[in-house]
């Protein structure tokens, strides 16, 4: 262990910018970015499934509120949403005395809320499109078997919709990773925050930002390959058979 750290120090010797301290900041940033993106995607996904079902309902009073929500969150920049949630909540009188404050006080949770609501809006629309694209024949067949609406949703519509939505959803995940770069405006030390810190401290924009760009690139490729793998598995039945 000692050898490794000595080797590491040797490697970084004479280098002003990539010291163990600044690499520590980058590591901290990587952890924060990963947590933020992963958690908001999970929460967004959980929200998006029922919302997409509501959104594709024929009853106006069910679908309209969801339409309004996705319209607002897809129609405004994420940065503005983050500002409103982070700086806006403090203007609610007495918020500091409520049970919500310990959560809203930390920059992490307002950011997580903003990211979740944003990705949920996009994911809802992706899923809605996939649900609408279910072929009429499948639905007719399900009806002919006497399936109820909910059973049909569970067994026929949703599984095939998820598969169809996969490529578009993979894109959304990558967009979310890139959009998370704004977290540093609310003091979070995410990857971009770490780069901005190093940039401001050492006046070295190229080193600081190129390094962090490389990390984002690696993350993007990891996501890309994960979705390729999923598509290969789940959409295997759609590929031409080469026998």
């Amino acid at each position: 262990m000692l050898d490794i750290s000595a080797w590491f120090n040797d490697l970084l010797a004479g280098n002003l910018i990539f010291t163990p301290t600044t690499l520590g900041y980058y590591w901290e940033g990587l952890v924060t970015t990963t947590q933020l993106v992963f958690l908001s995607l999970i929460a967004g996904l959980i929200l998006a499934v029922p919302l997409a079902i509501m959104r594709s309902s024929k009853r106006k009073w069910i679908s309209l509120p969801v339409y309004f929500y996705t319209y607002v969150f897809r129609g405004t920049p994420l940065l503005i949403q983050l500002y409103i949630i982070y700086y806006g909540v403090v203007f609610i009188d007495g918020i500091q005395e409520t049970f919500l404050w310990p959560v809203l006080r930390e920059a992490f949770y307002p950011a997580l809320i903003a990211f979740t609501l944003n990705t949920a809006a996009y994911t809802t629309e992706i899923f809605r499109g996939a649900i609408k694209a279910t072929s009429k024949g499948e639905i007719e067949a399900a009806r002919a078997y006497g399936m109820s609406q909910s059973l049909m949703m569970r067994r026929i519509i949703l599984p095939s919709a998820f598969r169809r939505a996969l490529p578009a959803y993979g894109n959304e995940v990558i967009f979310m990773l890139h959009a998370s770069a704004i977290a540093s405006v609310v003091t979070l030390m995410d990857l971009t925050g770490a780069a901005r810190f190093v940039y401001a401290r050492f006046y070295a924009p190229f080193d600081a930002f190129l390094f962090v760009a490389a990390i984002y690139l690696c993350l993007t490729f990891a996501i890309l390959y994960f979705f390729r793998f999923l598509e290969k598995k789940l959409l295997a039945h759609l590929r031409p058979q080469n026998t």
Partner: protein
Amino acid sequence: MKKLLTVSVLGLAIAAASSAHARDYDHVRIGVDVPYEPMEYRTAEGELTGFDIDLGNALCERIGVTCEWVEQEWDGIIPGLMSRNYDAIMSSMTINDERRQQVLFSDPYITMPSAWFAPSSLDISEANEETLEGKTIGVQRGTLQDNYVTDNFSNVASISRYSTADDMVLDMEAQRLDIVFLDFPIGQSTLLESEEAEYVVVGERISEPKEYFGDGFGIAFRQRDEALAEKFNEALAELQEDGTYDEIFTRYFGEE
């Protein structure tokens, strides 16, 4: 020997080129990070004002150049000078050795200490490793206050870094921060005179050690613009001589 000669000839050529270049300035763009009350801020009417602005305009008038203020966020202000977005920085920038390697400073035009500001409810009389343990400290990203706090307190406290002093004051009022570390006059005009809550200065005003707090505020230029810096230095000396400087000082800081 020959090599030495080549180098010195080259050096002379560069010096000649740069002084010829410096003579061209009749329009000087000055980078400034707004808002930073009372040093540089906008009035309710949107007019740019403050100590740096008034002094800068007076200097330009004395030199006989037209000046244009270019707004730039603090954390990119030195790179902005390097990439020629403007020709000088006059934005409460403290002169220190780290920055001297990047830019050429004028003579210091004002000296300002830094200070800790906290709500009176925090109830500590001095800021040190024990009293700051577990606290959240606010600083402006990339400032010498950031460097000082990062190097001295990052293992006991958590540090929140802001792009502007305004955002930081907002979060102080929102009770997201326990304590902030700021240039004294900025904290005085934004926090001590706040109507929202009661804030106090914690401990003494701080201007030591020099490696962090440097030698007062200076105007920064690109290294090669020596002639331009010289003009500003001369004008500064003249303004201090004829009382214009004192008048501007009193306008923002009162009699002190």
